[in-house]
């Protein structure tokens, strides 16, 4: 396919010359999605831990809902956040629409369920394995769960990377709340959509290749970091 080889050539050229526009949108993609996943982890991990280790009526129902929310359509989230942040909406005074902050908010809403649901699953196994012994040793529940975060860091980092992957690859939410404004809220995915709609398919595909490469790089970096922090494996 001619477009494919042209796409690779384009991707290579953009990368090697460190094309200014490419660097700008790639950095924004990273800033928005990394911040969103950081916040999502801050909320999602404790939520997953609490759900896994506490018994309360309706726990199964809540878990089911949480799992279902993993499939939230990005465009729906974008629309909902837009209506909230619009000047005519309840949070209009904050003046956040069409800014990177709005994009972070939308992606945070999108990926927190993913981090929470996947980490809940991990915490459930961990709690089954360690819960009794940690309680026997005298650990309070928060202390025990903190220990489990450390024990389960491999599986939990997968949950976080899943969230990051979803965030950096989505276009529906950031398009609506960000507006794809040049030099302001344009990220890799909205740029790809733009070039596709302009009919410049090799460029769109080239950007797509670079986005996938970025994702692979992020995952590789995460793996390398884990190895460096804890070389022995069980």
């Amino acid at each position, binding site marked *: 396919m001619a477009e494919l080889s042209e796409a690779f050539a384009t991707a290579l050229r953009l990368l090697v010359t460190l094309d200014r526009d490419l660097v700008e949108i790639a950095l924004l993609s990273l800033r928005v999605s990394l911040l969103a996943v950081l916040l999502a982890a801050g909320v999602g991990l404790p939520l997953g831990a609490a759900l896994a280790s506490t018994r309360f009526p309706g726990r199964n129902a809540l878990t089911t809902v949480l799992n279902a929310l993993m499939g939230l359509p990005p465009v729906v989230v974008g629309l909902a956040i837009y209506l909230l942040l619009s000047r005519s909406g309840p949070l209009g005074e904050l003046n956040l629409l069409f800014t990177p902050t709005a994009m972070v908010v939308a992606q945070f809403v999108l990926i927190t369920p993913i981090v929470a649901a996947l980490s809940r699953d991990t915490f459930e196994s961990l709690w089954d*394995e*360690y819960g*009794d*012994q940690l*309680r*026997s*040793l*005298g*650990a309070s529940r928060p*202390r025990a769960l903190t*220990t489990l975060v450390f*024990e389960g860091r491999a599986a939990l980092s997968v949950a976080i990377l899943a969230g990051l992957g979803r965030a950096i690859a989505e276009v529906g939410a950031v398009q609506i709340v960000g507006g794809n404004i040049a030099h302001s809220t344009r990220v890799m995915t909205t740029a790809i959509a733009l070039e596709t709609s302009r009919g410049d398919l090799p460029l769109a595909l080239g950007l797509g290749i670079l986005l996938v490469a970025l994702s692979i790089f992020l995952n590789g970096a995460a793996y390398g970091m884990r190895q460096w922090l*804890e070389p*022995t494996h*069980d």
Partner: protein
Amino acid sequence: MTERSATILPLELENVRWQVSAQAPFRLDGLSLQLALGSRTVLLGPNGAGKTLTLRVAHGLLEPTEGTVRWKGPGGPAAALQQAMVFQRPVLLRRSVTANLSYALALRGISAEARQTRLAHALEGAGLTHLAARSARTLSVGQQQRVALARAWALEPQVLFLDEPTASLDPGAAQAVESTIQSIASGGTKIVMTTHDLGQARRLADDIVFLQAGRVTEHTPAAEFFESPRSAEARAFLKGDLFW
């Protein structure tokens, strides 16, 4: 050995009943038991009799649905600090043997200096000093169980609960574990243990608690139990007639 706090024994379980949820059958059904200072108590009984449940209720991992669990003295968190438990499969953290013991001691608020002394002593007693720096989860199951024991020992508990501690081990490892349990007991810790292994019970027990269908049928000195058990069920059990 550091000075012990006020004794929490004897432990009284009075008419304890336990069900996993409302409508479920009572797996402990009017269980009464007194555990006194100074002896090694072994719980015996067929499968489903409630041996593990009894340990967990006594140790505070489970709340009884009905009935009371009473330690001597104020009870509550103070009593919990004087206990430790070892499970059938060793539960160790992904860190070194030393770090595992440190973790437990730090949880109890033991100062860093005292931690060092205690854990060195416990590791030595369990014959594990040469493994101190090893990653705990890479050891054999037998060694891991001894680490779990050493960890419990370092806490200097008044009461040590053990739930079938050698069930997953080969005879050589089982023997090492039994030997460590003996050492802990001779230091003054009360042992409360369950087992399926009658030979082990004979070797270790001072007194036997025989359980059936969620109740205590007999609680007698070991020699007496093995020579002439009082109940028909116990006799059948010892002969091997009762299904596990």
